[in-house]
């Protein structure tokens, strides 16, 4: 009689153990999926913000190419009308957070500009000419400038 009681107790104990493990396991999985969800929510939020930012950025980068052409036309044609149009165009983009990267005359910084040509000069690594303007959008370089840089011979 006593023996079978012991046996039953053992059985119950193992069952309790098993259930405990299962509860622990399920709790873990539950917390994990909850965490995954929260992470996803947070990331989705980030992605959305990034997406909005990049979507605009892609378009602006493509427009910069056109602006370059317009500027060349302005310089060549010397047409005041074209100048007004170009200024208007740029002011729209400025309102969206676009600004020109000022590199002319300063020391070459690969974060802001790309070297296209090296020319002999008095000083080393000075930007002597900007061949294509660089731009920042909301403080971040979206297109590095293209520059001529000096090198002491």
């Amino acid at each position, binding site marked *: 009689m006593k023996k079978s009681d012991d046996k039953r107790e053992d059985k119950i104990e193992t069952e309790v153990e098993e259930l405990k493990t299962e509860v622990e396991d399920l709790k873990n*999985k539950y917390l*994990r*999926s909850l965490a*995954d969800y929260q992470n*996803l929510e947070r990331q989705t939020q980030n992605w959305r913000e990034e997406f909005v930012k*990049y979507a605009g*950025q892609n378009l602006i980068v493509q427009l910069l190419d056109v602006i370059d*052409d317009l500027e*060349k*036309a302005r310089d*060549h044609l010397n047409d005041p009308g074209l100048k007004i149009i170009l200024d208007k165009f740029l002011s729209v983009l400025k309102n969206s957070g676009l600004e020109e990267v000022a590199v002319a005359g300063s020391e*070459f910084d*690969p*974060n802001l*500009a*790309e*070297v*296209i*040509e*090296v020319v002999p000069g008095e000083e080393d*690594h000075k930007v002597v000419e900007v*061949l*294509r303007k660089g731009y920042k959008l909301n403080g971040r370089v979206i297109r*590095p400038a*293209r520059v001529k*840089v000096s*090198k002491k011979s």
Partner: protein
Amino acid sequence: MAKIIGIDLGTTNSCVAVMEGGSPKVIHSAEGRNVIPSVVDPITHVVGDVAKRQMVLKPQETIFSIKRLMGRKFSEPSVQYDLKWLPYTVKAGRDNMAVVEVAGKTFTPQEISAMILQKIKADAESYLGSKVTQAVITVPAYFDDSQRQATKQAGEIAGLEVLRIINEPTAAALAYGLDKKNAHTIAVYDLGGGTFDISILELGEGVYQVKSTNGDTHLGGDDFDKKILDYLADEFKKEHGVDLRKDPQALQRLREAAEKAKIELSSATEAEINQPFITQGKEGPLHLTMKLTRAKLEQIVGDLIEKTIDPVKKALSDAKLTVKDIDEIVMVGGMTRMPKVVETVTNFFGKEPNRSVNPDEVVAVGAAVQGGVLGGEVRDVLLLDVTPLTLGIETLGSVSTPLISRNATIPTSKSQVFSTAADNQTQVEINVLQGERPMAADNKSLGRFILDGIPPAPRGMPQVEVTFDIDANGILNVKAKDKATGREQSIKITGSTGLSKDEVEKMTREAEAHAAEDSAKKELVDAKNVADSLIFTAEKSLKDAGDKVPADVKKSVEDKIAALRETAKGDDKANIEAKTKELSDELSKIGQAMYGGSQGQPGGAPGGAPGGEGQPGGQPGQAPGGEDHGEEPVEGEVVS
């Protein structure tokens, strides 16, 4: 749990990916790009795009293509070949290994590669928001022990524990899950920026073994770009007598234009090249405007593509196989986006290659998959069941209104408020439907029940909330509750997801096959429902207005109602719509008669939404068989 990242440490570009929620995700660099140029300035510790920008200024300090020197002896023929064209200094270091010298300091290829890996690690950490310490790195299949060892050391220098070095073609196969598809023999065609590799792999005991490799270490996208550039420059010279290659700025613009055209011609058949004011001629500025067709492009680079076929043949013969033995072909490298490359490969093997994964990312993706396997990325927790088919209820005109759409992850629940279709309707029947077809009769009825005891009210007034709830075991609970009285009824359906795969496929296929006729049927019912609502509104308006409506207007409206009611019994959608419009126009005359046209149509919008409660799809609903629309309370009306 820390994540294990997968890294494709490439000759020209590198890429990194990680498993997230059971699927691989490519991590973008701090500069917002999916790949990082494998370019390093070891003195200033500048890596990637930024380092690339100073290449012209510091050709001897900006190291690229370092992979070509990894784990190689200085005396090896390939090193001797490369050092002739590499602008930086390559010399013999310890144990006669090839090293680079920058500003009087020597760096091993491992150290240079480690700088690229450090940037990758930092980018991954900022994306994941946690430390990254472990990685899987890929190497070309032909890398020997020394080269693999060097790659592993590079990882260690960067602070990464390299759990495994895997072959690039194997990673590409993993990215496509070919091991799970039991593709026995596969060919991986990798045309990258600077190198071409072909590898033949064979699956044995769940692992891919490299049977043979071949390739051309100096053939890639750069050669293609150069050919296109030369073509454009030659054309320009023919026309204007100016060689754009001699003007560094024009050359840069031309290079960009050539690459852009190449990319455009992968999807379009013609690309326009427009570079105004590209240079100064004798008589003023010159513009580069040119059209490049895909056919012309293919002619320009045709021989380069052809050059890849010989190595493929050699690899096959080394593996003692023929094209017939190849089960799958995988495309890797940006150049494989070119339609002509795909066509050439397809023609050679006689079957379509796998190319759905971005070819710039596929190797990193495969490395991440391998990392996920090593890290025991717990799929069973993350893999939740989905409902295979749409679940909904039947509403007015035997339409199936979906509540939970197919492939929704379960457990999930959804509620929607419906109303009655007739005045003084005291009960509604809920017919629970499963399937993709818009008409109730074409879907499978899972069960039905009646909610009664709804207090008599005009149609559209009662609010019955129907809730679908599927638990994790796929058991569907449908509950209908009258918001006014709180009375509710429910049904439990256990077989809602227990369909066999064949059944689901059959139902989905049928839905696709019948899509056109189904939507026509649905439109007809919608037209009938609109007509029905308008008749109801018209009759109500007439009643409410009473004697204030002139007799002739009243008569005319009644005629139009009769005409519309008759037409709505038939199946002529256009006619129903026309008659509906006539009645609607006529109806506005009641308003004009009553208010001298100063206030809109009385009686509210058809269907009269009750109490501002959100009522998606909230036309009054009716059960099948209820042909006599909304004139008297009909038993078995369904809420909608």
